[in-house]
């Protein structure tokens, strides 16, 4: 067998690819060839490594050296120094912040240290386009176990013991869901993998499909046997080209190897998997709308009941699980439900993948045990808030979720605790916000997103969300009225109760949770016409502090509307009627003459 002394695990997830990872791969190939190392050093393109903030990332094994933020121009030096001469290159390694010591090894970095990988077990370790690398890490062994050694009831029971709950948002117990679908009458049943991830800032599912597509396929075959289905669908949004490519390759390879199709491994069990591309409508992540879309109809939800388990795709019993849920299944079968259920809290077992984004130092993809506190995620793994700013809130669960304020930062993360706090687990987006964030503006952003994405089938969602957005817009423009908060609350309750599907039922969450925790901020906008975070442009005014202004003319040059004038070396004038509050002058001023007190509210 061909032996390479060094394996270079180059991250080729979407984030690193957009940061030039494929060109880095090319120059690595060229340089390695130049030094005649092609028989000693192997380049392995992997899926997302997780530490997207520091991409493009290269991990060198067996040394465990972590290189980050690579540029094409770094490669010749790196190859000669490290891979030929054996001198790891310090300047390309990770430093937590300026002035600190570099950390050469991946597992010594705080970001990785606190994570427990189950769903992401193969991330950054294998080439997702090579089925044999997945097989090498015990891939498809759980499927073999399920097909040969377990009855459908035993599989369902194992999943029930594990306590696994749906990772797509609502958290319905997976074993129970399978049991219901198995019990439904009918010869033809379907299973679906929901990969229509659409929350702003969330990319857990994309990342799993890109890094380890076979784990999803394996999970689905196991589920198919448990439920009695012989046909499955993976519904992926077309905006995920790389995920689509890798899951397509994986399905083809699995078919070539006889791990999908007829008589899998000689067990007599048949299962066929088809990939369906979604058009990118947010509502198609809702299970009934998703099934309509697979059937070729307009993706709009239908009333439940009947639930998919009774009457789903083409009227047949159907089981839908999210990507991450499927990816957990092989591990549960391999290591047992008991093992899985020992991780996590009383009601939420196992781990959860979060995409940690927003105002946090280490943005990226993290997998942590349930019950970990938000503080541990944001500060230990995330490295805290950049630029010494103060933490203000974290939005969980995307547009259907809610904002959790600073006083609840020690909240343990599980389904119940998050719901109690007015947010939801959702699919796992964590958007961190700092003191410069206006909570009314945030609510407006999410509500506008949902207004665009509402399918328009039911009135409460279609018109209710629009009315909420109008009220919020008014408030941010300083035209808020006494009673607006109460009106928002009343609207929210109605939309929640009367909407047809999950999109409308959860749409008011961002509004309700921001009112609940940041009511004073709403009141400041409405009563005092002030935006405490200085975000809402209609409520703030810029001026120049004459005592501080040196007359350097930097602001004059950047002002796009010519609002700032003035001769050199004399305090400048700012014409408020021309000012569009773009903040360009504030950014360039070196003397704080357009900062602090200079940005004020009337």
């Amino acid at each position, binding site marked *: *067998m*061909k*032996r*390479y*002394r*060094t*394996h270079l*695990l180059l991250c080729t997830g979407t984030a690193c690819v957009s940061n030039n990872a494929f060109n880095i791969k090319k120059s690595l190939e060229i340089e390695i060839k130049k030094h*005649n190392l092609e*028989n*000693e050093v192997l380049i392995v393109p992997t899926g997302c490594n997780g530490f997207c903030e520091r991409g493009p990332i290269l991990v060198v*094994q*067996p*040394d*465990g050296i972590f290189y980050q933020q690579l540029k094409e121009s770094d490669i010749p030096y790196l190859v000669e120094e490290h*891979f*030929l*001469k*054996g*001198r790891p290159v310090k300047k390309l390694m990770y430093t937590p912040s300026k002035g600190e010591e570099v950390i050469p090894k991946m597992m010594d970095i705080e970001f990785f240290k606190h994570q427990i990988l189950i769903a992401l077990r193969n991330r950054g*370790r*294998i080439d997702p386009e090579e089925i*044999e*690398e997945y*097989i*090498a*890490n*015990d*891939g*498809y*062994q759980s499927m*073999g176990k399920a*097909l*040969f050694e377990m009855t459908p009831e035993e599989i369902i029971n194992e999943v029930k013991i594990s306590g696994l709950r749906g990772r797509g948002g609502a958290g319905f117990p997976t074993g129970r869901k399978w049991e219901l679908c198995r019990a439904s009458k009918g010869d033809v049943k379907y299973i679906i993998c929901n990969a229509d991830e659409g929350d702003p800032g969330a990319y857990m599912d994309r990342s799993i499909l890109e890094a380890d597509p076979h784990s999803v396929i394996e999970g689905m075959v196991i589920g198919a046997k448990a439920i009695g289905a012989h046909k499955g669908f993976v519904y992926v949004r077309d905006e995920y080209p790389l995920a689509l490519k890798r899951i397509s390759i994986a399905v083809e390879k699995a078919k*070539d*190897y*006889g*791990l999908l*199709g007829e*008589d*899998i*491994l*000689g*067990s007599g069990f048949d299962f066929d998997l088809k990939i369906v591309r979604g058009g990118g409508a947010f509502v198609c992540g809702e299970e009934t709308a998703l099934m309509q879309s697979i059937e070729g109809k307009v993706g709009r939800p239908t009333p439940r009941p009947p639930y998919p388990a009774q009457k789903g795709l083409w009227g047949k019993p159907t089981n839908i699980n999210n990507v991450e849920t499927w990816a957990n299944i092989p591990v549960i079968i391999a290591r047992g439900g008991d093992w899985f259920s020992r991780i996590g809290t009383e009601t939420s077992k196992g781990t959860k993948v979060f995409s940690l984004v927003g105002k946090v130092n280490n943005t990226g993809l993290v997998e942590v045990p349930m019950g970990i506190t938000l503080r541990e995620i944001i500060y230990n793994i995330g490295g805290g808030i950049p630029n010494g700013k103060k933490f203000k809130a974290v939005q969980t669960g995307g547009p259907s979720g809610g904002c959790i304020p600073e006083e609840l930062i020690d909240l343990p993360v599980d389904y119940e605790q998050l719901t109690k706090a007015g947010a939801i687990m959702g699919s796992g987006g964590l958007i961190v916000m700092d003191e410069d964030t206006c909570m009314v503006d945030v609510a407006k952003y999410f509500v506008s997103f949902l207004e665009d994405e509402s399918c328009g089938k039911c009135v409460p969602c279609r018109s209710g969300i629009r009315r909420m957005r109008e009220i919020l817009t008014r408030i941010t423009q300083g035209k808020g009225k006494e009673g607006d908060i109460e009106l928002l609350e009343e609207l929210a309750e109605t939309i929640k109760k009367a909407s047809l599907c999950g999109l409308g039922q959860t749409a008011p969450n961002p509004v309700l949770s921001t009112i609940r925790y940041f009511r004073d901020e709403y009141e400041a906008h409405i009563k005092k016409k002030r935006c405490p975070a200085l975000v809402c442009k209609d409520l703030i005014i810029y001026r120049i502090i004459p005592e501080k202004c040196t007359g350097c003319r930097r602001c004059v040059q950047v002002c796009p509307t010519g609002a700032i004038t003035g001769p050199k070396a004399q305090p400048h004038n700012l014409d408020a009627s021309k000012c569009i509050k773009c903040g360009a002058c504030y950014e360039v001023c070196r003397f704080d003459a357009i900062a602090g007190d200079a940005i004020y509210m009337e």
Partner: protein
Amino acid sequence: MPKLTLDELKALRDKAKESIKTRDGKGRAKIIVHMGTCGIASGARNIMNSLLKELEERNITDVIVTTSGCAGLCSHEPMMTVEIPGKPPVKYIDLTEDKVKKIMVEHILGGNIVVDYALAFGSETVY
């Protein structure tokens, strides 16, 4: 007839596992070939190649081979250091391909240091 049986899948796994073992970062021994300019000039690349060939021919997958810079004793290059967990590292000097073969058999597989080729035990203290 299925395309692949369960037994064949297991055999495939065992074979594939060997090829990615390097990524675990674990091994029963670690061999460091010194690849400073002096090392390369006196043939360290050949030493590296013959090491890898030896490992491949003997189908040994749990020995880590890596490189490092000049060890400071340029007149005795090519050099390599053999580290076996729990034992002091051993530096070998003035290597040839035949010497490498002998070290492989006696030291790495057999556990007995080839005293004739060894310079010293241990490494310098690093501050």
